[in-house]
């Protein structure tokens, strides 16, 4: 282990393993390292053979890569989880209420809590969604809340991924892999199962079907196609739910409904879990050159004849500038204080904040307001002087495009290396399902881990890996 004591390590405290890790620690210390290394290699071969890969944008030769999997689980106690899931549920409900409000009466803008510019000038805001109530009143059917930890009791929400969060297939496959590699662990330590997720997802989507739908709703997953970075996940989820995986060219409008072309003619779809961005959803309404969407789907949607999950226009809620108002948003709609903390956020659109950010770039993390996947961000402490200067120029030319946050001292969890355990920074993305019948949060999530010592960037596109996430039974 390195001797960097500045970070909170979730497994090893000053006096040995923290309580949630006691069982695992005892098991681990009795293991033979060589055997574990062999298991790790087996896991990699398994992932490759079964094609659990993702595609990296801008890399033509190595089209498909594996997300490295680390065999040391990330363990969360049931009381820690209880608080986290309460906090996530509160936040998810607030986000749905916020979206309904933004696309209807806009009370929160009238009350002056969120500045109107943040909505009016927001590229993710869709005027087509105004005065329209999506089926069941749900906007974000699937949310993946990014959470980081800095201490025993300090959890922060880093991002609310309310558009099309990905990664849930890794949550499921990582657990499957652990079960196969170390079945004995699961008989010793009681871990809450995650395997119900696909069933819950299907139920949740069916419960969100248009009210006019008769019989069991027909659900389908819409993918941009095999070249999309998350194609594996799209096909995995369709397969696990037992529903069709469709592309835009499989669909068309038939008698006022969306229908898919089957070997026996067109069949109506009631709920479309789309993994295609808003821009590409309907060439007749949005990007006219899109080949990924379905011409006319927005008309069908507005006529109430299909559920689109997540609803178009939800991106307005996971914008990083809106994020900075989340504590106020939670309080406005739920009447309660936010259970989960927000990271202090400087909005560079504000002159004082911009001045502060420019003066402290070396200590801050600066992100694009609409960015994701770790692209286009600056991690001050890890950047060279030259990179900082170049970023400062970008920032000055378009301050409204950026927010800045202090560099958090993210918690670490050990990974398994040739030399034994070594601490690496982690984050956590649990997945929440929202339907008219309620919020369902699978006990677990995707733990992403920065594989380079000291690195804070956990994104898979930037060389991060994943771990199985264990929520312990009481």
């Amino acid at each position, binding site marked *: 282990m390195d001797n960097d004591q500045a970070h909170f390590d979730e497994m090893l405290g000053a006096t040995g393993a923290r309580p949630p890790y006691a069982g695992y620690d005892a098991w681990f210390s009795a293991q033979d390292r060589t055997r574990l290394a062999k298991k790790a290699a087996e896991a990699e071969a398994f992932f*490759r*053979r*079964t*094609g659990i890969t993702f595609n990296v944008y801008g890399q033509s030769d190595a089209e498909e890569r594996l997300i490295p999997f680390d065999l040391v689980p990330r363990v969360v106690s049931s009381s820690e989880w209880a608080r986290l899931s309460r906090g996530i549920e509160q936040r998810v409900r607030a986000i749905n209420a916020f979206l309904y409000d933004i696309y209807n009466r806009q009370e929160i803008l009238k009350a002056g809590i969120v500045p109107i510019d943040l909505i009016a000038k927001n590229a993710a805001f869709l005027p087509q969604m105004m005065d329209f109530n999506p089926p069941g009143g749900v906007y974000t059917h699937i949310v993946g809340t990014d959470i980081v930890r800095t201490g025993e009791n300090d959890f922060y929400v880093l991002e609310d991924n309310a558009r099309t969060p990905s990664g849930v297939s890794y949550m499921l496959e990582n657990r499957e892999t652990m079960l196969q590699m170390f079945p004995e662990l699961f008989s010793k330590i009681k871990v809450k199962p995650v395997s119900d997720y696909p069933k819950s997802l299907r139920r949740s989507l069916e419960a969100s079907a248009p009210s006019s739908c008769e019989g069991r709703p027909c659900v389908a997953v819409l993918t941009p196609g*095999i070249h999309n970075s998350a*194609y594996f996940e799209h*096909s995995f989820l*369709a*397969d696990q739910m037992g529903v*069709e*995986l*469709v*592309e835009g*060219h*499989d669909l068309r409008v038939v008698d006022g409904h969306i229908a*898919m*072309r*089957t*070997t*026996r*003619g067109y069949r109506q779809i009631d709920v479309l879990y789309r993994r295609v961005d808003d821009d590409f959803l309907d060439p007749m309404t949005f990007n006219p050159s899109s080949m990924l969407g379905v011409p006319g789907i927005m008309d069908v949607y507005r006529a109430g004849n299909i559920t689109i999950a997540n609803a178009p226009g939800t991106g307005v809620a996971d914008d990083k500038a809106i994020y900075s108002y989340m504590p106020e948003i939670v309080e406005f709609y739920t009447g309660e204080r936010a259970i989960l903390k927000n990271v202090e956020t400087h909005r560079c659109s504000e002159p004082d904040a911009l001045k502060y950010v420019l003066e402290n770039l070396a200590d801050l993390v600066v992100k694009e307001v609409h960015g994701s996947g770790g692209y286009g961000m600056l991690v001050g402490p890890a950047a060279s002087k030259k990179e900082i200067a170049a970023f400062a120029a970008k920032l000055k030319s378009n301050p409204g495009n950026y927010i800045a946050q202090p560099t958090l001292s993210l918690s670490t969890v050990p990974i398994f290396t040739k030399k034994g355990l070594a601490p690496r920074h982690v984050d956590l993305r649990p997945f929440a399902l929202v339907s008219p019948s309620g919020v369902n949060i699978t006990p677990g999530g995707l733990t992403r881990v920065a594989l380079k010592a000291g690195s804070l960037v956990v994104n898979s596109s930037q060389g991060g890996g994943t771990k199985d996430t264990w929520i312990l039974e009481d």
Partner: protein
Amino acid sequence: MLGKTAGGLYWMFRFLERAENTARLIEAGFRIALTRSNDAESEWKSVIITSAAQQAFEARHDKYSSGNVVNFLLRDPENPSSVLSVTKSARDNARLVRTALTTEVWAAVNETWMLLTETLKRPIPETELPAVLATIRQQSALVRGALVGTMLRNDIFDFCRLGTFVERIDSTARIIDVKYYALLPSPSFVGSRMDNVQWETILRSVSAHRSFRWAVEDDFTAPAIADFLILDDRMPRSLSHCAAQLVNNLGHLAKDYGEAMPSHVLADRMNARLKDRDIGSIFDEGLHEFVGSILRENAAIGMQIETDYRFNH
């Protein structure tokens, strides 16, 4: 099932079958090149013609040498029918239809693609060619085994099989088409060195030079070989056997979907032309003309299946 999925399954198995058939053709050509080097160049040329790749080949190479042909057919990414290209196409289609495949079938195809991509990265020296060709055959047996052993016998299975047999008819018919002159019953050729070479190549291209001896009591005569390749139902690569399989799988679909489609009529017609025939009447009709018409009918059946089951529109 989505029309696109049916198309993906069908094409996945056409490409897999093509990879296997190409490997067999190379094997036959290689054998000739080793044992009768004087005939090698013309043999390699007919291999290329059988693969319907003469134009593409000649645009890239001047000489029908072993090295050029093997490289072109095995690993040239510019050749859409090279083993490397069709394996990638098969795997792309498998990815497209992944939800319709069992884990075993998917993993077998994915593994095949990984293995062959790695194996075919560098030119194959002659000493390693037999092992590489064996790998290709083994991998396709692995996929076929996974298909037969793990998939439900439903419409998914039928579309896979349709792809296999449409491709196989095409392949066997091409082999006969290119070599038809060697199969003509002309007394002047019997026993000459030329037809022996040709007959051996023909049988080797369909991996049947041993089974022919077992199945056919007749000696190696042109009509006996033609009969074996065209009309013998026991031979899994004969036109007759494959046509019967097409009719069989289309029959399952008709039952499943409660409706017979135009492609069924076409397949029935082709099948009827191959049943209750003797090889003499085919020679009377003209072997070249007969095989040419089977090639055309088979292509029409393939296209009609695509239309009937809405692969694309």
